[in-house]
């Protein structure tokens, strides 16, 4: 009967005056990193609207870089003022967590974004069209490929400078994603960074058909997966009566302080919890590209404009793993014994499939895509260690991996032939003879991917394997080692054909990049080597950042 009464109280206006709605107080300082980026994005749109076309490019690039730098500075400021550790807190009415992992990952994402912007802004690689320098984005996204409109756009020297604000929106979403502290924010953030990425994927200047196809696939599958995630959210809500991580965690672990009796009656159905949790995890696994939710990766990586691919491969992984970590460590630790075995399966399959399928790839970008799948497997091994060192190792791995990836894709943009980037491996034959430097740099990245000592890849791999072993997952270590051995094979293959096969006369040319891309690659190399030789400082950082607030 009481049940009916409460329902009644929901929508019938009671006689007495409604309680005053007190306005929420937002900790703007703690949210600054995100706010800066969003603000800049909005400004960027304005610039598109009002600035003359010639001025836009420079304005946008400057704005974006400044905004991202500022955001990064804000992150550092917060971390420095202790928000990463003792002053870690929940902000924005429980929507966001400001704690170590969040700040660490936000910082990483900001940096990744900055480097990506450099590659986005590169205009030296493609030959100038009608005297206008062009970047790797379509003159006019809406124009049909090869159609009259496009030709006119090219002639007029249009460039899609919208990519910069779009990028900023995506970054904003990514900054929120790992910090999201309730399922609603999680979902919104997911969409906020996914939708811009769908658009970016479609904007390649060359091979637009592939680009558009990639966009379509990414969009459909992405929407599909987020629908699953959303349904999972719904079920979890149904289970716990709340969508805040803390609240759900309480229900899971069964210690309830502030639950009104009405909800208490209808919640706690474990089926909802398990299914809901599985669906949400699935949504995140899709983003990190874990098997069997990885199938979009090769196609999208291949079709998307290479700078975008680099950005996606690096930043999306960081954001998604951040969210996954928080979900597993904050919301579902009570369920460890339920999801861990399942995740074991996912980890093993991911590592092996990624490594094995990559062996026979013939396109650099697809190769890197599969390698990213394998790496997702390695990182997951650290994720499910469920030890503090597990968290820090994952954070470190993400930092290391994202810069290697950025660098690698940046190098890919340099190797070109008549049809734009020459991504087919047969075109890379003898690269080492034509331009040893570029080949050597790429070799460094490949070795880092392969986890050769003295590169960041090795430090990261050791960190996660160590965590896994401590977490009692020795089997995963062994499988991971086996997978690395298989993976080594195809990285080596690339090196072989770069260096020791005689270059073909119609081989590719290596475009001489402007300072932008050069900087991006240089940063990639430096980070790779530094994290490989002297990782201790960053390990400490990750170690301190390794505690979630709840």
């Amino acid at each position: 009967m009481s049940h009916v009464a409460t329902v009644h109280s929901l929508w019938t206006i009671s006689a007495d005056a409604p309680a005053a709605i007190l306005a929420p107080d937002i900790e703007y300082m703690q949210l600054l990193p995100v706010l800066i980026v969003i603000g800049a994005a909005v400004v960027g749109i304005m610039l598109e609207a009002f600035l003359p076309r010639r001025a836009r490019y420079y304005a946008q690039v400057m704005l974006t870089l400044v905004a991202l730098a500022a955001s990064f500075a804000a992150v550092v400021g917060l971390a420095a003022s202790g928000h990463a550790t003792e002053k870690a807190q929940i902000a924005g009415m429980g929507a966001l967590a400001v704690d170590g992992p969040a700040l660490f990952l936000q910082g990483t994402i900001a940096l990744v974004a900055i480097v990506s912007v450099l590659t986005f802004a590169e205009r030296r690689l493609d030959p100038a069209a009608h005297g206008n320098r062009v970047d790797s984005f379509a003159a006019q996204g809406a124009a049909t490929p090869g159609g009259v409109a496009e030709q006119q756009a090219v002639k007029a020297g249009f460039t899609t400078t919208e990519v910069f604000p779009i990028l900023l929106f995506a970054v904003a979403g990514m900054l929120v994603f790992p910090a999201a502290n309730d399922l609603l924010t999680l979902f919104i953030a997911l969409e906020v960074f996914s939708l811009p990425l769908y658009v970016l994927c479609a904007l390649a200047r060359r091979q637009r058909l592939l680009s558009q196809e990639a966009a379509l696939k990414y969009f459909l599958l992405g929407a599909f997966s987020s629908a699953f995630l959303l349904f999972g959210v719904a079920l979890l809500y149904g289970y716990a009566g709340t969508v805040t991580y803390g609240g759900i965690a309480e229900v899971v672990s069964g210690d309830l302080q502030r639950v009104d009796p009405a909800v208490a009656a209808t919640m706690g159905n474990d089926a909802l919890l398990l299914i809901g949790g599985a669906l949400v995890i699935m949504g995140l696994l899709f983003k990190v590209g874990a098997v069997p939710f990885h199938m979009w990766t090769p196609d999208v990586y291949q079709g998307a404009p290479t700078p975008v691919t680099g950005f996606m491969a690096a930043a999306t992984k960081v954001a998604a793993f951040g969210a996954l970590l928080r979900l597993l460590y904050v919301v579902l630790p009570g369920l460890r014994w339920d999801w861990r075995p399942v995740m074991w399966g996912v980890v093993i399959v991911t590592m092996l499939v990624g490594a094995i399928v990559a062996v026979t790839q013939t396109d650099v970008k697809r190769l890197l895509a599969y390698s990213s799948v394998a790496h997702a497997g390695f990182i997951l091994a650290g994720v499910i260690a469920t030890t503090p060192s597990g968290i820090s190792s994952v954070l470190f791995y993400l930092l290391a991996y994202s810069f290697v990836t950025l660098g690698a894709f940046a190098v890919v943009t340099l190797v070109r032939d008549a049809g734009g980037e020459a991504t087919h491996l047969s075109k890379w034959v003898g690269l080492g003879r034509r331009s040893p430097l570029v080949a050597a740099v790429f070799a460094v990245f490949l070795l880092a991917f392969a986890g050769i000592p003295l590169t960041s890849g090795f430090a990261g791999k050791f960190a996660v394997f160590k965590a896994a072993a401590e977490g009692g997952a020795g089997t995963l270590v062994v499988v991971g080692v086996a997978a690395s051995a298989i993976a080594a094979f195809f990285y080596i293959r690339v090196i072989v054909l770069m260096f020791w096969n005689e270059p073909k006369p119609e081989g590719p040319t290596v475009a001489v990049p402007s300072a932008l891309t050069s900087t991006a690659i240089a940063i990639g190399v430096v980070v790779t080597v530094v994290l490989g030789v002297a990782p201790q400082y960053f390990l400490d950082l990750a170690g301190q950042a390794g505690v979630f607030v709840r």
Partner: protein
Amino acid sequence: MSFPLLTVTAALPAVGAIATAAVPAAGRVAAKWLALAVSLATLVLAGVVFARFDPGGDRYQLTESHAWIADFGVRYELGVDGIGAALIGLTALLIPFIVLAGWRDADVPDAEAGDTRGRRWRPTQGFFALILMVEAMVIISFAATDVFLFYIFFEAMLIPMYFLIGGFGDRAHASSEDEAAKQRSYAAVKFLLYNLAGGLIMLAAVVGLYAATADQLGEGTFSLARIAEARASGELELATNTERLLFLGFFLAFAVKAPLWPLHTWLPNAMGESTAPVAVLITAVVDKVGTFAMLRFCLGLFPEASSWATPVILVLAVISVIYGALLAIAQRDIKRLIAYASISHFGFIVMGIFAMTSQGQSGATLYMVNHGISTAALLLVAGFLISRRGSRLIADYGGVQKVAPVLAGTFLVGGLATLSLPGLAPFVSEFLVLVGTFSRYPVIGIVATLGIVLAALYVLVLYQRTMTGPLKAGLEKMPDLRLRELAVAGPLIALLLFLGFYPKPLTDVVNPAVEHTLSDVEKTDPKPDVPVTAHDAEAAK
């Protein structure tokens, strides 16, 4: 804080490598001289290390220890025991000869030198830079007393080796240049994948070791000293199965490197396809890291497991001895023949290590040094021969001694060293190994003794087919050894003779280290059945 001698010794070639690589394309010759100078300077430093090492002193000397990666429990810890000192000496000693022998191996053919990519493409600089880089890494891994530090360089040295093998194969190939390139990259990839796979298995074991130490000591560590101490005080008690698994992880990696049958098949390809100096680098220097590591890490970290695995390992070793020799007899290619001979010799080394007797292990250590020198002598001279005819096939030679007696002579001495003739260094070590093995495992020892007959067979057959008999057509103009080549062969042979008659300087350094190792595994030499009074009297005085 004393002067970091070991670090400097290892760093010098590394710096030299970078400097060499930086020499512009025009200054090829300068690069060569620079590399030679650096390698000689390193030799001097190594000499200092050897001199400063006091056989009577602590187990590890010239130690350095700095924090490095605390999170992984990794410290930058260096230190040499007698074995390490000897092998560092060997490495530093061989590199100058390798550089000198490879003087012309990486010259750009004039055809390429002219064209535009000659501008950026600087194989000569690369060749010598890579050699020096390998030297640096090898020295570090001989000096590392931290398992992780060792592992890092143990793995990292694969990369420069990989480029040396694949990038600079000898031009002496039967078929076309394309074919040669194929063979080369096959060999290089095989080398890398074999060793990388071994290394990754070891990585798993390294992680396991960390987990074990972290679990029992509170904080994970890789420091040999720390682990030994913890083991002694009983803090660290590895469960039997854990220890065995970890041991296997380590041993597999070393067995691939060393190479032990049946993990050996990468060696003939690698040595066959690479130039003679690089082949020497592989078999005389880099592979020694494997056997050295068995001695220091397998026995040092996992004594029980080592004794547990001994029987199997000994059988594999003796198989390598015989198998390698038999295959060497059947080879048609000079360098592959020497490669299989090396496999046979590595069998001896492993046998000596796991015989767990002081003779065996001292012998094994001497063997590493002597085999390095003798193989270098034989292989480098063979390289000179090959470079003259441009073929590796034994059948393409004959009667060389008529036109190039000095070449033939040095080749013969190298060969005799390989079949371990008394008076030349390898005899000492081989006999020690045999005695050491025999005194604990008579059957194994006797079977291995067959190896000395087979060795005579493959060496003398090689010499007969290439050097004696009527002169093969096309060799009439073959020049004898040039001055540079004599400068390579001469000292090596002198060294072989000296160490053959007076190995004392080496044994003095090695013996204490071996005693330490034996005490690690808690083994003592078997006592003779009849303690002869006269002998005891001798021992007394």
